């Protein structure tokens, strides 16, 4: 079983920091951005930024998986 790499886990923490733990920093109404109160804007912004973070995490994971797979092929012959 492939275990997640540390790099991918760290990238995944970013949305948790931004949308959850940091709430005291952004739970406010002003300034309005695009007609939205700041806290709502912030959450919507992170809905859009999260897939970018996850794409980076995905690339990190893929790299590791591909590396292990090609290493595995070198060592053991797959029927």
């Amino acid at each position, binding site marked *: *079983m*492939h*275990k*997640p790499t540390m790099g*991918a*886990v760290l990238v*995944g923490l970013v*949305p*948790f920091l931004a*949308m*959850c*733990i940091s*709430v*005291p920093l952004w*739970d*406010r*109404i002003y300034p*309005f951005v*695009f*007609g*939205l*109160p700041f*806290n*709502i804007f912030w*959450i*919507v912004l*992170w*809905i*859009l930024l*999260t*897939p970018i*973070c*996850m*794409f980076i*995490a*995905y690339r990190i*994971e*893929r790299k590791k998986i591909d590396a292990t797979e090609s290493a595995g092929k070198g060592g053991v012959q797959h029927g």
Partner: protein
Amino acid sequence: MDSSTVALSVILVIVLISSIVGMYAGSRYKMDLEQWTVAGRGFGLVFVWLLMAGEVYTTFAFLGASGWAYSRGAPTLYIMAYLTLAYVFSFYFLPQIWEIGKKFSMQTQSDFFRQRYGSKNLAAFASLVGVVFIIPYLQLQLTGLGIIVEVSGFGGISRATAILIAFALVAAFVFVSGVRAVAWISVIKDFLMLFAAFFIGIGLPYMYFGGIGEMFTALINAKPAHLILPGSTKTMGQSWYVSTVLLTSFGFYMWPHLFSAAFTAKNNNTLRRNAVIMPLYTITMPLIFLVGFTAIMVVPGLSNGDLALLTIVRQSYPAWFMGIIGAAGALTAMVPAAILILAAATLFAKNFYREMFAPNMTDEQVEKLARVMVIVITLIALYFAIYSSTTLVNLLLLGYAGVTQFLPGVLFGLYWGRVTKKGVFTGLVVGIAVVAYLVLTKQDPFFGINAGFVALCINFAATVIVSLSTQAEPNRFDEEPAVAVKK
């Protein structure tokens, strides 16, 4: 034609077409247990997305989210945060669950516990807990559907009749096509949902206030505290927000039906890519919130916030449009209900009944029993929904906090070699006991922190302590799968 006839005809046509699509979906496949429960592990990116989105956007997303925006305000933000973060979290364990599930031909969450901890009692207990918490969730879908059809049909059909018709259809397509029906109906449902969310989410603020910013300005003038935590509540402050977002995003995939959706994927890369794109689907939620916020000033004073969306749409748009919204709403109840019924039926037949009473049953007999259970479980939930009690919402909160207690057993099962079955058993029992006590004695939030989160922390601690003080056990995921399992 009067409004009621127009709206009801639209609803009926859309719901019927969807049900026929659902029944047809499975007709090209020979339905064995593997096909019926996890679609033969053949779903690619698009279908896994559709299935998972279909399961997530329930009547709660439709009525509850706008209702929370209407009556509570800022606390409703937790919904957008936890959905997004639940997908993020899934990236780090769903592909692993898929890998294990493939190796040991798993179809349910309890199969995971059975294999990892080698205990049939633990697996049977886990399946029973799953079924018990699924029923109130199912009941909520039924009740929500009744409300939607009653209101959007301009009262032309009674709540009980609407529920009966819809659930006869749901039981029928699940019975015939299993999980494939759910994925296909999700196509129609998602399309309608997106259309509805964009149209009314942006349309209503413009209709009444001339813009979204103008709507918010008016709202802040009328209710200055509504839009920052704790909004119009007394207990849902920032610590409640953090603990609730953590609890629900961690616990999300612990629902047995969402857990087993992972098994439908063709490979684990599908699940990784799905976790990357899923958060984007959350973008419909702020649109639904806009409807709830607009409704505060347009239709003030509703005693039940859940009716805010339907009430404002009904007074702002023509009857045929109300019909489309009603149909979208009805499908948001029917699709998750279908998958809940499927999961509960399989859990009961495979992991409870066979495990405890009939170890010699073949997969074929399990599948037959599961199909019978589809009808039994539908009838139980129908009974509760029609003779519904007021403790419904309590039961659901209990359910969410309850299923999350599976988390230590799942995460440690994957990543911690030292965990033991006694540890997991103890943690699960203690966690559920704490949740039940705090929620039923109305101590949720507990000192400002979500009661389920408190229970989860205690659960983790209990699992670790008991595991370390019992003898180490082999990790049964390292075993070779027994070929003879398929009888």
